[in-house]
């Protein structure tokens, strides 16, 4: 076992580790250690998940039956808008960045992230951004209410809440870009000896590709909202038809960001699942190289399909066909991934601990979301389904059953490494089955609502939609309740769980993070891991064969 306490060489400048001597709030405020920052990101994401979740429950409460019960339509629209923005930018994305912060240096054999101080900045931009979003609820005119896509002219006409949201998006974008620079630099420059790019864990690969995507598209979103801001206050007319601008241009720019953003939230999930399934199937990942190429293909294709979000704007048939076929093409690399996960499980010695359950749940439900996406990619069908609950069902299958379930899987998978204790398996499984059942009760009926023509973003609806809406609301409240069990499980584990965890709690884990003790000490890999140890893990993952380098 490598001793992580050897402090021979590491990449911090002298004095940078002052945070380790600090306790209380100062430890977290001045944190430069990747584990501390990862923890901060994860707790922040969870807080935002609860905030966005409560908003979702407010939305569902209003939709329990027809008529207006709780909220006026204006506030309902604010709830849907903030729910979307908070879940995407506040919960899912920071959670993945948190995981990358915690796990990448451990998995790659690096002492820390490449830029420890910038890492601190990346995180501490998030709370003010979240505060701006929440404050917007209390300013005259209320929070933005034009949907998370912020389409003009609605967003151009909104009150000052929109300005706060725009500044918030600027901060969130800046944080994402800095976080991405850190992730890319860490992965490209700080891997353990012997770990070439095509030998690193798939989570590192998906984090790398995601970070590149973010650097490419987060500034484009920043540009779009800056144009919106100048349209609102400085007399420009980028999106103002009366001044010669074009509101549809905003949609083009937004979705040039927005579609890759979908994969920014999906690719890390693919990486997590690709770590977990081989561990619990006790087999190396089937088709590692094809998984890497599929990840890159998805990333490249994601830049070329934004128009499928705009089939209904009056696009020429030529352009519709172009976007339709390219969108369908994404199903190919995604299918490669799904088949690889299934092939990994095939004839494996599988056990079904909580992380594996969430990973399998992810594969099943994400595939459902993928198929409904394939349906929506067909332009004539999309024209029918545009802005109905079918679309809501589709993207919640992708983002809740996809991104969120993978995050739950990751938390249960690495919780022993983070805390040093084992979680309660029975309660973990209860959390999974509870979430699995109520998630489907919530979102599956939305397919039917959408097919029957119920529009999204409305507080009231026609009588024939009542039963499915009531069912979805019951499901949503139960699903929400289940997440308190998740919180309890995590807190219980932090306080000792069911007992201490060994360094390698899972039989099939072969990546480097399982070589350090549990809990992972504050400083790890201050000297790079031994090349023999790295090779042993790579051989077990079937990405390196004995004597390959010598040959």
């Amino acid at each position, binding site marked *: 076992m490598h001793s992580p306490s050897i402090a*021979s*060489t*590491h*990449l911090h400048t002298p004095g940078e580790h002052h945070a380790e001597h600090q306790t209380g709030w100062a430890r977290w405020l001045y944190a430069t250690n990747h584990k501390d920052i990862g923890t901060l990101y994860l707790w922040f994401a969870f807080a935002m998940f609860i905030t966005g979740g409560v908003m979702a429950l407010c939305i569902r409460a209003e939709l329990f039956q027809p008529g207006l019960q709780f909220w006026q339509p204006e506030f309902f629209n604010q709830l849907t808008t903030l729910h979307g923005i908070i879940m995407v930018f506040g919960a899912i994305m920071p959670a993945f960045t948190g995981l990358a912060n915690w796990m990448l240096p451990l998995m790659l054999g690096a002492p820390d992230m*490449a*830029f420890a101080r910038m890492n601190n900045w990346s995180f501490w931009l998030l709370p003010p951004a979240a505060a701006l979003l929440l404050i917007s609820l209390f300013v005259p005119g209320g929070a933005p209410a034009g949907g998370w896509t912020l389409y003009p002219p609605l967003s151009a006409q909104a009150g000052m809440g929109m300005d706060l949201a725009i500044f918030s998006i600027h901060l969130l974008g800046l944080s994402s*870009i800095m976080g*991405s*620079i850190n992730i*890319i*630099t860490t992965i*490209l*420059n*700080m891997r353990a000896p012997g770990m070439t790019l095509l030998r690193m864990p798939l989570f590192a690969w998906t984090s790398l590709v995601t970070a590149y995507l973010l*650097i*490419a*598209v*987060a*500034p*484009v*979103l*920043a*540009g*779009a909202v800056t*144009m919106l801001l100048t349209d609102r206050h400085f007399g420009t007319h*980028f999106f103002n*038809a009366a001044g010669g601008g*074009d509101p549809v*241009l905003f949609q*083009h*720019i937004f979705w*040039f960001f927005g579609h890759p953003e979908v994969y920014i939230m999906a690719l890390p999930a693919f990486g997590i699942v690709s770590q977990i399934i081989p561990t619990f199937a006790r087999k190396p990942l089937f088709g590692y190289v094809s998984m890497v190429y599929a990840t890159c293909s998805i990333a490249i294709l994601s830049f070329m399909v934004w128009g499928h979000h705009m089939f209904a704007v*009056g696009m*020429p048939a*030529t*352009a519709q066909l172009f976007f339709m076929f390219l969108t369908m093409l994404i199903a190919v690399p995604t299918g490669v991934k799904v088949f690889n996960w299934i092939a990994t499980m095939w004839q494996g010695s599988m056990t079904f601990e909580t992380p594996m359950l969430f990973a399998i749940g992810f594969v099943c439900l994400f595939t459902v979301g993928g198929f409904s996406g394939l349906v929506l990619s067909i332009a004539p069908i999309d024209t029918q389904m545009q802005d109905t609950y079918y679309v809501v069902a589709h993207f919640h299958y992708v983002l809740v059953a996809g991104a969120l379930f993978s995050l739950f899987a990751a938390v249960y998978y690495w919780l022993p490494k983070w805390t040093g204790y084992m979680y309660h398996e029975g309660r973990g499984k209860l959390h999974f089955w509870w979430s699995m059942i109520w998630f489907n009760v919530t979102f599956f009926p939305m397919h039917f609502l959408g097919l029957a023509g119920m529009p999204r973003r409305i507080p009231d609806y026609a009588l024939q939609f009542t039963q499915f809406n009531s069912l979805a609301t019951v499901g949503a409240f139960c699903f929400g309740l289940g997440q308190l069990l998740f919180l309890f499980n995590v807190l219980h584990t932090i306080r000792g769980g069911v007992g201490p965890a060994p360094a390698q709690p899972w039989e099939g884990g072969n990546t480097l993070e399982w070589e350090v003790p549990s809990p992972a000490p504050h400083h790890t890999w201050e*000297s*790079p891991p*031994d090349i023999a140890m790295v090779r042993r893990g790579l051989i077990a993952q079937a990405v390196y064969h004995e004597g390959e380098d010598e040959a």
Partner: protein
Amino acid sequence: MAAIDVSIITKQNQRLAIKLALVAALMFGFGYALAPFYASFCQFLGIDRANASLTQAGSALRVEFDVNVAADLPVTMQALDGVQVAQAGGQVKARFVLRNESDQPVYLRAVPSFAPVRAAGVLQKLECFCFNAMSLAGNEQREVTVVLLVAKSLPAEMGAATLSYSLQAIPAFTHKVRES
């Protein structure tokens, strides 16, 4: 274990970070560049619905007339002159036939809209049945017209325009108030 040369890796990291930050800055500019790029890209590929090359009408403007009737209205409407060619500075006259298919009188209005929207600045309505609400007696058939004045100079990039009418029912009370 050989020690890592900290300074070399730090320099490598810094160089890479600067390159990546530069890419982010360029992408911010790319967002702005999309504004002019978007219009010229559509024209270059010929996928702009209003492109002159699609009309086969030379320098003139192809004007299409379209009608939609609300589902609850027992009225049919037909454009007798569905497609016309508008010459710069000239006039275009288009006729429509309205027929009440029920025994009861109906009160309706026609809501016009242009596509592309900027065609409204080129085709000015001199006379239009859409200016006023209308009533049709039971089973009555009536011919109505619209007369458009075409601008003296037609934008080069605009080859075709559509004037679409949507017929909508209005309650009898509202109709009477408007007539008075």
